């Protein structure tokens, strides 16, 4: 039989086409929800940018993450987020409760573990009163979880010793917002990035620490090339790559620079007198009883030349920065994080950034806003807004205010007088109380103080000591904290539970549960509720689900400046994040607070453009804050500055990111030093150095880089085996009680 060529080709063509019907790109590109795969909406586990994600679930585990194109991040993620599935199945996931017996942590049942915890807490409270126990929580816990802890400890047990790691991270930003505007939290949002003409990035390595916000700034610059980026940082970080102006300076002298920028703005007539007239008062110390004349006189000491002398930078650069920021008709946006917050002058330097916006009136209009960048995914929603600190109550209320305490007692259904009138201990003081034996029992939730506290050696001893009973809920073991604990409880991690996260821009979003908790892990709200029951406070914490807790939270925020009663669980589920205030169902949320016509809490007939309703006179305050030095500066014995921080690959203490194989290359913390300093002590890249302060010492391998500043050493914070916090200082800002991680004095030698 012969086949014609024509027939052959036709048959081949037909066969090929049919064969191609069966060939599918197996696995990789097929993303339809078929074949047992589903995509669950959630939020990234890491930084305060709060990127929306979809978690891909197959066979009961998360196998992929993709960005949510309908959220603020427009579908983009940073590398850490993208690799999140690996943290779920890390080999050091904790699956069972552990109890220390005869010096060793051994597996126990939930019943055994919780009975012990309740017993020890109960006994301490009985013997020494409620302040013998305390709670140390986290800006990574769900809002509902911090809420339950707050209620249980303050209204049940009756102690205000409720703290959280945002004290180490955001407390000065809180202090800045509260003193400048009367209430916490930024008034602008990420969308302002799309309208800004000038960016002032100060004390922030945005490129590595908030990559998706950095990317948004980059896009703004690409589409509007006349946009100016000013970066103020002693180091020339990857953020400086897009800077039109980078100003490096002696650590701790940024107060002088910011005051000098204000001086230039006023001297060259870039200030806005009518805005100041209508919306601003002036203050010094704690009283807002100064005048514009006082402020001008104060600024006279901060000419660019004087500031440049103090800061070790160029006066001309300060003038340029001021002219760009203050330029008429330009929208100016400032962003900052730990460079300003982790300082003994943290609140003051925050005030100085707000001053620039207030004297120019560049606030409350598209692209003009001071936006503090948050470090953790839920420091804002859970701890700051939820009032999970020792001096706070939920949603703008404070312990020291009798009316606020009465409101919460009523809302929580406890007798008047239940909540103690005196604030509890702030974090460093809390751990010092543990050290002194005044605090006996500490419940640590979702954080790693054994690695993250400043001058950590001292507090590790406190946690380890015989007299302390420390309970830790964690997803991993061992961590630098669980290794010191008496009881370790396995906590459900990220995709294994559901609840609300609130990020930097007042955006609340729902993390939906995608998979079941591993082993015997349970969500933190349930662990707390059980502790509450066992301690006899079951009626205060009767929750079966975080949705139930959220229902209650809605009643507690009603009528406050946070009012988000319109954010029902269902509304959050349907949305891709909502910005508060959002006082009724269907309200679109608020992009710009304090602005008439945009903020539902400002009456539509308010006579002025803005109403800073956090303060009785509706005015914001420009505070006169002088340049003052950090707690510890270099001297003959300790001649270098030490500063600490993140790299893009790892997050906080690295307990999650270290499990991601692609990130292991950067898992070892390094000390970044300037070539001049390397030469001086005779080291090259890869050599080891021993760095020591008055508090402790640690050894690191060295990275020699021009990005560092002569005399300044930058050490990575994410490595459990090379703990920079052995060296850092636990001096705190007197107002915010936040420690000065960013500056201390060290000596360095080749190891």
């Amino acid at each position, binding site marked *: 039989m012969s086949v014609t060529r024509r027939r052959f080709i036709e048959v081949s063509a*037909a066969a090929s*086409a049919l064969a191609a019907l069966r060939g599918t790109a197996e696995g990789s590109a097929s993303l339809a929800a078929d074949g047992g795969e589903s995509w669950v909406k959630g939020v990234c586990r890491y930084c305060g940018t709060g990127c929306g994600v979809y978690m891909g679930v197959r066979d009961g585990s998360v196998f992929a993450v993709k960005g949510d194109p309908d959220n603020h991040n427009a579908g983009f993620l940073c590398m850490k987020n993208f690799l999140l599935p690996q943290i779920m199945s890390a080999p050091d996931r904790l699956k069972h409760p552990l109890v220390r017996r005869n010096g060793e942590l051994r597996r126990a049942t939930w019943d055994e573990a919780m009975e012990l915890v309740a017993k020890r807490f109960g006994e301490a409270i009985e013997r020494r009163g409620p302040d013998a126990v305390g709670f140390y929580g986290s800006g990574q816990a769900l809002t509902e979880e911090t809420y339950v802890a707050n209620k249980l400890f303050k209204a049940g047990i009756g102690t205000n010793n409720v703290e959280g790691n945002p004290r180490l991270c955001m407390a000065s930003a809180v202090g800045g917002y509260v003193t400048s505007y009367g209430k916490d939290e930024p008034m602008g949002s990420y969308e302002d990035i799309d309208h800004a003409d000038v960016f002032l990035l100060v004390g922030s390595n945005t490129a590595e620490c908030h990559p998706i916000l950095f990317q948004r700034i980059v896009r703004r610059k690409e589409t509007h090339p006349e946009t100016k980026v000013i970066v103020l940082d002693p180091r020339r970080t990857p953020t400086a790559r897009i800077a039109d102006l980078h100003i490096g300076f002696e650590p701790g002298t940024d107060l002088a620079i910011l005051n000098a920028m204000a001086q230039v703005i006023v001297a060259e007539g870039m200030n806005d007198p009518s805005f100041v007239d209508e919306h601003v008062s002036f203050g010094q110390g704690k009283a807002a009883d100064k005048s514009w004349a006082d402020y001008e006189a104060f600024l006279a000491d901060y000419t660019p030349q004087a500031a440049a002398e103090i800061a070790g930078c160029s006066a001309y650069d300060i003038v340029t920065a001021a002219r760009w920021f203050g330029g008429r008709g330009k929208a100016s946006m400032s962003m900052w994080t730990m460079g300003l917050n982790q300082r003994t002058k943290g609140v003051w330097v925050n005030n100085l950034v707000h001053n620039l916006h207030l004297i120019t009136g560049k606030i409350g209009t598209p692209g003009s806003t001071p936006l503090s960048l948050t470090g953790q995914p839920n420091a804002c929603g859970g701890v700051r807004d939820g009032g999970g600190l020792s001096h706070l109550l939920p949603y703008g209320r404070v312990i020291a205010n009798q009316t606020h305490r009465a409101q919460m007692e009523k809302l929580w259904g406890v007798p008047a007088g239940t909540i103690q009138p005196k604030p509890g201990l702030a974090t460093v003081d809390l751990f010092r109380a543990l050290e002194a034996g005044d605090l006996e029992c500490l419940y640590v939730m979702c954080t790693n103080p054994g690695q993250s506290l400043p001058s950590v050696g001292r507090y590790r001893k406190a946690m380890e000591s015989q007299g302390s009973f420390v309970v830790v809920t964690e997803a991993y073991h061992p961590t630098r904290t669980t290794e010191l604990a008496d009881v370790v409880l396995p906590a459900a991690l990220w995709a294994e539970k559901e609840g609300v996260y609130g990020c930097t821009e007042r955006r609340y979003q729902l993390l939906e549960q995608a998979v079941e908790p591993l082993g015997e892990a349970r969500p933190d709200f349930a662990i707390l509720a059980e502790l509450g029951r066992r301690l006899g406070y079951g009626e205060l914490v009767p929750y079966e689900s975080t949705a139930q807790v959220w229902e209650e939270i809605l009643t507690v925020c009603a009528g406050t400046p946070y009012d988000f009663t319109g954010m029902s669980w269902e509304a959050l589920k349907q949305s891709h994040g909502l910005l508060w205030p959002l006082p009724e169902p269907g309200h679109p949320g608020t992009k710009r607070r304090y602005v008439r016509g945009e903020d539902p809490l400002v009456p539509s007939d308010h006579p002025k453009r803005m109403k800073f309703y956090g303060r009785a006179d509706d005015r914001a305050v420009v505070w006169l804050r002088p340049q003052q030095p950090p707690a510890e500066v270099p001297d003959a014995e300790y001649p270098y500055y030490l500063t600490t921080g993140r790299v893009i690959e790892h997050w906080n203490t690295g307990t999650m990111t270290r499990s991601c194989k692609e990130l292991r290359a950067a898992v070892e913390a390094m000390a970044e030093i300037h070539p001049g300093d390397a030469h001086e002590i005779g080291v090259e890249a890869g050599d080891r150095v021993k760095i020591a302060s008055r508090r402790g010492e640690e050894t690191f391998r060295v990275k020699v880089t021009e990005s560092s500043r002569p005399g300044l050493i930058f050490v990575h914070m994410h490595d459990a085996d090379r703990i920079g916090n052995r060296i850092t200082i636990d001096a705190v800002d007197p107002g915010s009680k936040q420690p000065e991680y960013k500056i201390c004095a060290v000596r360095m030698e080749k190891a």
Partner: protein
Amino acid sequence: MIVAGVVIQTLSGAAGEVARSVDGTSGLEVQGDDGNQRVAALWRAVEGSTLETLSELLVASNERVLGVFPVYVGDIDV
């Protein structure tokens, strides 16, 4: 004369309907479909560029057709 074996990509579930509606038009001879989103067909045309133009027309005119992809192309002019 060009003969091509092609796969016509359709909206999810629309393969059967598309198969029925294109069969016999413009030189297309349907060979089968996968019951979901792909139709296998034989396409005869005078020359390659004709096929390209016809493909574009098909995509533009039939909203259930997402694209046309050739998996085999042969020239049967000897």
